[in-house]
């Protein structure tokens, strides 16, 4: 469904990605792992179009994305839950969610999708007229996921959904992601929390300094001795 082919990406003179390739197939939940500064978020920015790769290309359902503007990619069915949420803090929860359905493709079904999101996260229903900036971290994360779901994505990109959340909330978050996957959503999950990510993922990629260092099924990665030593602390 999503194919990233040998992309290079840089901010000014600072090269972040060097020939990175990965693939997400239909109905999979793939996790992109790595430490700070490895290039995880940059990879997502290349997929959503906020950053243009210097080399290589990104394909979605076989179609190259280089000519598709960032704002048109939501219409193709790609939705991002950004790192640190990036909600519109002074808009209400309801308005944040409605903006998620801005694209023509999903606008007509905004009401049904709003119901679905609010059934999934009842907390958002309670808080619907509150401004998003006043929500707790976990609620903001729910709101960000809800906003992404409002566009009826076929590919959901999640950038560190566990960032800055209490352990119990992190667990709920992963539970929600698992449920989404079970309902047929294809997911690319970026995480620093390897143990939790590998538990729900089908496959994973470990990246370091902008390159894929290891890849394989979640079980393979979990039992890889290098991973166990370097990331899992076992």
């Amino acid at each position: 469904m999503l194919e990233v082919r040998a992309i290079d990406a840089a901010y000014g003179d600072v090269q972040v990605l060097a020939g990175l390739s990965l693939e997400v197939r239909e109905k999979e939940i793939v996790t992109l792992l790595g430490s700070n500064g490895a290039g995880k978020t940059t990879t997502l920015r290349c997929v959503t179009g906020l950053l243009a790769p210097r080399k290589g290309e990104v394909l979605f359902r076989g179609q190259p994305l280089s000519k598709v503007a960032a704002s048109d990619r939501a219409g193709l069915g790609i939705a991002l839950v950004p790192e640190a949420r990036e909600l519109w803090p002074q808009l209400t929860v309801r308005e944040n969610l409605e903006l998620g359905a801005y694209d023509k493709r999903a606008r007509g079904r905004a009401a049904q999708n709003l119901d679905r999101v609010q059934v999934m996260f009842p907390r958002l229903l309670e808080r619907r007229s509150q401004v998003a900036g006043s929500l707790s971290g976990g609620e903001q994360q729910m709101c960000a996921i809800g906003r992404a779901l409002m566009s009826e994505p076929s590919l959901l990109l999640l950038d560190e959904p566990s960032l800055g959340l209490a352990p119990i909330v992190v667990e709920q978050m992963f539970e929600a992601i698992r449920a989404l996957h079970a309902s047929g959503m294809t997911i690319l999950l970026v995480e620093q929390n390897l143990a939790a990510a590998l538990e729900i993922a089908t496959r994973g990629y470990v990246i370091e300094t902008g390159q894929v260092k290891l890849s394989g099924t979640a079980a393979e990665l979990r039992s890889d001795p290098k991973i166990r030593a370097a990331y899992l602390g076992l």
Partner: protein
Amino acid sequence: MKLPLPPWVRPRALIALLATCAALALGPLLHSDVYIHNLLTLTFIGIAAALAWNWLGGYLGQVSFGHAAMFGLGGFVAAKAEISMGMPMVFAWCFGGVIAGLYALVWGHPTLRLRGPYFSIATIGVGEATRLVGTYWDWLTGGSSGTSLPMHPNLKFTLYWYALALAAVAMAASYALRRSSLGLALLAIKSDVDAASDVGVSSTRLQDLVLFLSGAMIGVCGASYGSYFSYIEPGDMFGFDRSISWVLMGVIGGIGTIAGPALGAIIFVLLRQYLIASYPQLYLGLYGILLVLVILFEPLGLTGLSLRVLRRARPDLIVSGSET
């Protein structure tokens, strides 16, 4: 009778607008004071321009210090169309407006990628460059000696209703831009461009659209201003203090609110009339002080102030700034 209105239109707001317009339209029949009549005409033009400036500066947060470029261009193009091509006045206004809107796109499409202060600095350059070119191009503007427009008997008197219609259109457009689903998208761009583009809100397209509308409306204001004074010259039409005046109106009334800039324009025009007459050397300085006070104590201007009073009077009522 039930009117087929889009769901975001509040009947109360529509009635208020219609009632105000009706009262103002009938006003001149009740009094015969020419001074007030003309002052109101200028106020209406000021209201329309301040609202149009706010679409870009308030709704999108792209504060322009160069809107006089479109004001002047609209004015001179309309004058030229009326004089050389014999276009009827209102058509000439619209023509001037469209040209002004297109001109705004020419410089705005590239510069709107900049945000915040960077965009504002670029608009200062655009405004000043346009003023210089406008002064130099005497085939269009008549150079520094300016252009005289045809005078029709009674024109200045009837312009009152044209200007009122202009202000009403600008008010309705302000309401529509903010309250329709487009308004939410504009707020999204204002507060986080990247997040906006992630959900499919194209900042390029929407910013261009709003700038075009804003520039075109300002252009029509310039054209009607020209018809009112029947003599225009580049230094005044393209002047930097003219650009600043819309920023001031916005700030005084409440930047980014629907009706705030209209209030600001009323205060500004009336205050200027009084200050110029009483303290001609001091009036810009006094505006400066007013601006500082507003930003320090009530960043949402008069709108913020009235909300505060309303909240105190009716604590049970929940009013948010974005609703006004």
